[in-house]
């Protein structure tokens, strides 16, 4: 076991899969000799050569097309989109092409591609770097969307994503890259996609969340504990498809739930979680399921992040509304 940051765990997962499967290719803007703008691919080109880990021209759509073409010839591309705000340039390759590759070919061609991309607020990035756009991807039949919140999860989920024979969008929260270390096994291991994890057990209210909001929710749960409320925190880890079973089991136990996301209220996936709970556990609910989300404006100017991004205080306030309904 080693103490790793999330970014180190990600590099470790990439190294593991580059070793494990000669078809794995890592490419993107500045991922080669530079090691990536966040050092996620540090040292990989040195170890595996330019044939396996390489830079691309600066064009996200071209990167997406490269992934399509390479996947059609049996490669297992792991392209990087430098910041997920740039996904609009490559929406067609992901949602219009790879997501449909298996379907369009009647099952003949798979699309084993893993797009890695950083996102997330709280680090004062310029425009179009931090936006939470997972909702766009989660609405796309044919792709899976994974968002880890810990170094341990990041490594296991990334290895699973790369091994998955369908397209995965793997979103890495920038604020979590180096904010803490965790014990991460040095050997390869996997965490199944589509499986949530109960990060904290509780009995009074279920908090369903993902990404940086997992940590805000855990912090809120600690505060709530002091006030006598026991909150169960579920980290979705995969936001599409969501792990209905884990969510419903928890809601049936607690009778109350909130969904916490960093994205705007009209975006993200919270509305889907609420709908699933309403469909499946309405008779267990003591109160409506409320959402903690950002306001429905464009992602804030860097100096306005603090007042705009949801945090543990918002989680506490919303949890209390539900607890005292």
């Amino acid at each position, binding site marked *: 076991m080693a103490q790793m940051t999330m970014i180190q765990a990600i590099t470790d997962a990439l190294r593991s899969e580059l070793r494990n499967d000669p078809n794995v*290719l890592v490419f993107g803007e500045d991922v080669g000799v530079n090691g990536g703008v966040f050092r996620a691919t540090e040292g990989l080109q040195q170890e595996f050569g330019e*044939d396996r880990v390489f830079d*691309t*021209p600066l*064009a996200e*759509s*071209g990167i*997406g*097309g*490269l*992934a*399509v*073409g*390479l*996947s*059609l*010839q*049996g*490669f297992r591309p792991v392209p990087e989109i430098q910041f997920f705000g740039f996904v609009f340039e490559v929406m*067609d*390759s992901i949602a*219009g*092409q790879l997501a449909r590759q*298996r*379907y*369009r*070919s*009647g*099952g*003949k*061609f*798979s699309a084993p591609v893993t797009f890695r991309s950083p996102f997330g607020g709280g680090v004062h990035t310029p425009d179009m770097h931090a936006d939470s756009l997972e909702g766009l991807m989660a609405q796309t*039949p*044919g792709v*899976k969307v994974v968002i880890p919140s810990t170094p341990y999860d990041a490594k296991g989920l990334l290895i699973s994503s790369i091994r*998955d*024979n*369908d397209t995965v969008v793997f979103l890495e929260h920038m604020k979590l890259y180096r904010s803490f270390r965790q014990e991460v096994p040095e050997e390869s291991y996997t965490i199944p996609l*589509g499986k949530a994890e109960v990060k904290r057990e509780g009995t009074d209210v279920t908090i369903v969340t993902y990404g940086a909001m997992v940590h805000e929710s855990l912090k809120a749960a600690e505060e709530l504990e002091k006030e006598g409320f026991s909150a169960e925190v579920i980290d979705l880890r995969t936001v599409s*498809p969501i*792990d*209905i*079973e884990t969510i419903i089991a928890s809601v049936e136990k607690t009778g109350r739930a909130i969904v916490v996301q960093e994205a705007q209220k009209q975006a993200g996936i919270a509305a889907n979680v609420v709908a699933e709970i309403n469909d499946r556990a309405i008779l267990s609910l003591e109160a409506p399921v409320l959402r903690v989300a950002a306001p429905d404006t464009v992602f804030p100017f860097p100096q306005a992040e603090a007042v705009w991004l949801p945090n543990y205080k918002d989680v506490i306030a919303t949890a209390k509304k539900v607890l005292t309904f």
Partner: protein
Amino acid sequence: MVSKTQNAKLDAKKTLEVVEEQFQTLQILNESGEIVNEAAMPDLSDEQLQELMRRMVYTRILDQRSISLNRQGRLGFYAPTAGQEASQLASQFALEKEDFILPGYRDVPQIVWHGLPLSQAFLWSRGHFQGMQIPDGVNVLHPQIIIGAQYVQTAGVALAFKKRGTKAVAITYTGDGGTSQGDFYEGMNFAGAYKAPAIFIAQNNRFAISTPVEKQSAAKTLAQKAVAAGIPGIQVDGMDPLAVYAAVREARERAINGEGPTFIETLTYRYGPHTMAGDDPTRYRTADLDNEWEKKDPLVRFRKFLENKGLWSEEKENEVIEQAKEDIKEAIKLADAAPKQKVTDLMSIMYEEMPQNLKEQYEIYKEKESK
């Protein structure tokens, strides 16, 4: 270098003229079927020349029958191909089996001649998932509906060939309108930067639906767009099967020798409407223009060329026509026999393993379908 720059008078217009002069149209066979460029004549045997003619005649019939079958409601989406036989078939004829084709929506003939059964092409037109269950060993992708997407994907397939050391090329097609897309540029630029074995073809039939090519770009030729990617570009008479063949064959040679991609513009014309979905070319094309291009018909000039060599006859042509009609009838019958699609079929081809939401929905539809 420094002194030269200092002495040169800035003349941007001149620069453009110099560029345009580089892109002369390659023609081998003129409208009367005479060889006008012996030096560029490709090395084709008599049998190969006859086979190319056979394919062009066959495909003209396929187009006529497809239009008629569409009108009868026996085919769905169809983009007519008449006029483009030289551009489509002579380019495919220059390929080898291991080469991979990424077609646009009008490029069904190329993938049929590359090995896709006709019945499956008809199923694709109708909108059936079995249409693009490409048989093993047939190196083609489904016709691409998103204009330009096939270009960036071609860079990827070509890079894969380079990485695997496969002596094969990836070839793709778009139209004149498609050259305005970002993916058109990105695809050629990526392939150029990686020196990947790709052939990019733009079939310039002068119209993108109703929009004339002059409204796509101020560029005098489309071929010169290759300059932006730093790759060779060539403009060919797209009504001349020998010129198209020679250009593609040369590009293929260069590609498999590790010299990178080529961009080829074929000057061609579509005699029919844009698609069978209600397009009416008389709204945007003059009869004069149609007549002018009908004189350039690739079948007419190639027929004359072969007849002069004693390689073609009316009898031969009629045999091909009869064969085509018979094959088409048979293929439609096969397409008719395909099972109706069920929602559960569509669910089964989404992922390797169905996620929870689909598993649930699968059970619901299985129940519905069992009634």
